[in-house]
């Protein structure tokens, strides 16, 4: 991390909780260039030759190892599209931490579009954490359009934690997943928009294998004049179970459109969707005020808890 300046280090802390060089494999990208890489005996990272991005190859049976691949942009006006492919070997159990932080103090828009593809091997277990963060007071926008594709082999499981709490002006996040037999996908998304921000979050999950399951839970808060569209679709093509939940708090002049959709193409598919949008309940504020908090403090506690 010696090549990183203070702003870049701060962004790194926000998106990957990194205060120092992590153990295990990592690949740091700063202002469209490689800023550090480490591979291990079981995890290899290679730069792509035909386009920007990397291949992360995790050997079969790799257990309790982690990969960190944070990206930071601190130069105004940078636009990049990066293709990262993860090949997770059969029977492995790994933690993957990605994330992007943009600091834009300039007048030109900064944009990072990360296209991540996961090929999760048989009976492999993956925990994936992705955080997005923006800062800087320039007029240039901070734009992130991540695309995540997940291909899950038989008996594999993946838990995804997707967080975007602050500072990203515009985002269109698309997540697609295809699951084979007995594969299990769990997604926790937390989203907060403020100011004039706009966020689109689209999920399309195909449950193709017998016994596959997906549980997608999104909690979001739209403040000020921000707008969110949450579009969640699960297709049950075999004996499977799918559940989506959109739970949103709306504040000020925020707007939220939740578009749930379920498509059952098999009589044995069990699909459930729940969606709720509402402002913070008055009695929640009152309760916390009777415990000595001001209205503003009560609001912060409720939102922090909701997005925790």
């Amino acid at each position, binding site marked *: 991390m010696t090549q990183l300046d203070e702003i870049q280090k701060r962004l790194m802390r926000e998106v990957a909780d990194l205060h120092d060089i992590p153990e295990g494999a990592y690949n740091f990208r700063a202002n469209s260039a490689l800023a550090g890489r480490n591979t291990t005996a079981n995890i290899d990272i290679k730069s792509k030759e035909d386009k920007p991005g990397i291949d992360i190859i995790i050997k079969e049976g790799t257990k309790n190892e982690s990969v960190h691949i944070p990206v930071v942009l601190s130069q105004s006006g940078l636009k990049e599209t990066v293709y990262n492919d993860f090949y997770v070997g059969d029977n492995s159990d790994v933690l993957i931490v990605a994330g992007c932080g943009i600091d834009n103090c300039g007048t030109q828009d900064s944009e990072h579009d990360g296209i991540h593809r996961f090929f999760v091997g048989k009976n492999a277990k993956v925990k994936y954490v992705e955080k997005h963060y923006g800062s800087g007071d320039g007029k240039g926008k901070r734009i992130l359009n991540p695309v995540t594709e997940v291909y899950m082999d038989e008996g594999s499981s993946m838990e995804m934690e997707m967080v975007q709490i602050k500072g990203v002006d515009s985002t269109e996040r698309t997540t697609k997943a295809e699951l084979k037999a007995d594969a299990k996908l769990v997604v926790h998304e937390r989203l907060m928009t403020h100011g004039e921000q706009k966020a689109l979050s689209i999920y399309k999950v195909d449950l193709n294998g017998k016994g596959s399951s997906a549980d997608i839970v999104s909690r979001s808060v739209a403040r000020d004049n921000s707008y969110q569209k949450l579009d969640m679709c699960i297709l049950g093509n075999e004996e499977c179970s799918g559940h989506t939940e959109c739970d949103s708090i709306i504040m000020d002049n925020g707007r939220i459109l939740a578009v749930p959709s379920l498509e059952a193409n098999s009589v044995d598919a069990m699909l459930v969707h729940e969606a709720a949008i509402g402002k913070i309940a008055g*009695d929640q504020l009152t*309760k916390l005020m*009777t415990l*000595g908090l001001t209205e503003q403090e009560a609001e912060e*506690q*409720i939102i922090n808890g*909701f997005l925790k």
Partner: protein
Amino acid sequence: MLELKNISFTADNDGEEKEIIKDISLTIDDDKFTVITGPNGGGKSTLAKIIAGIQKPLSGHLFLDGQDITDMSITDRAKAGIGFAFQQPVRFKGLTVLDLLRIASGKTIKVSEACSYLSEVGLCAKDYINREVNSSLSGGELKRIEIATVLARDPKLAVFDEPEAGIDLWSFQNLIRIFENMRKTVSGRSIIVISHQERILNIADEIIVLADGAILKRGPKDVILPEITGTDSAVTSCEMLDKEVRK
């Protein structure tokens, strides 16, 4: 000491102003366990909310230890030492029992300290401390957590609005035990419970009967309870159960 002077409150009832509280004046002394009872719609909960600052009176004044608190916000009254337990406890998605107890105590209390409040209300602390205060909890569990938040706050004046409402009989037995314990440790503070349950009235030092927005009767438990037993101001939970418990 809490003093209410000439408190009135009206509410809009289908376009018509209805008088809910009619010029009530009363004093709640320190070290006292007071139960306010009376028929439904008599103004009991409204009065409790006026004390906590959740409702503003149309006229009159409230004093806590001589300080005029009439224009104080809910927050300032809480800081001045008034605690309030809701009749219908509020649910929070994401906030845990520990979070709520920490907010209530006003400091980052240790887990062991938070657990002691849960034990006081008869909940196994390790099962509950990290649970979210959401709809996965039953009415009885929520009610006990609500009471634990008031215990954690340790207020000079604690107001409980119908603590028995919406709980099962099993939880009710525990609730009585909690209030009996509170009665023993009331020294230096005062407790007001809104209830028409005979078993709770039985714990009181003093009973106030509120009907049609005015004080109908007021006095020591030994005097008032015999006068109201069998009316809708002193309801028994379940005769069979009472017999079992009193064996």
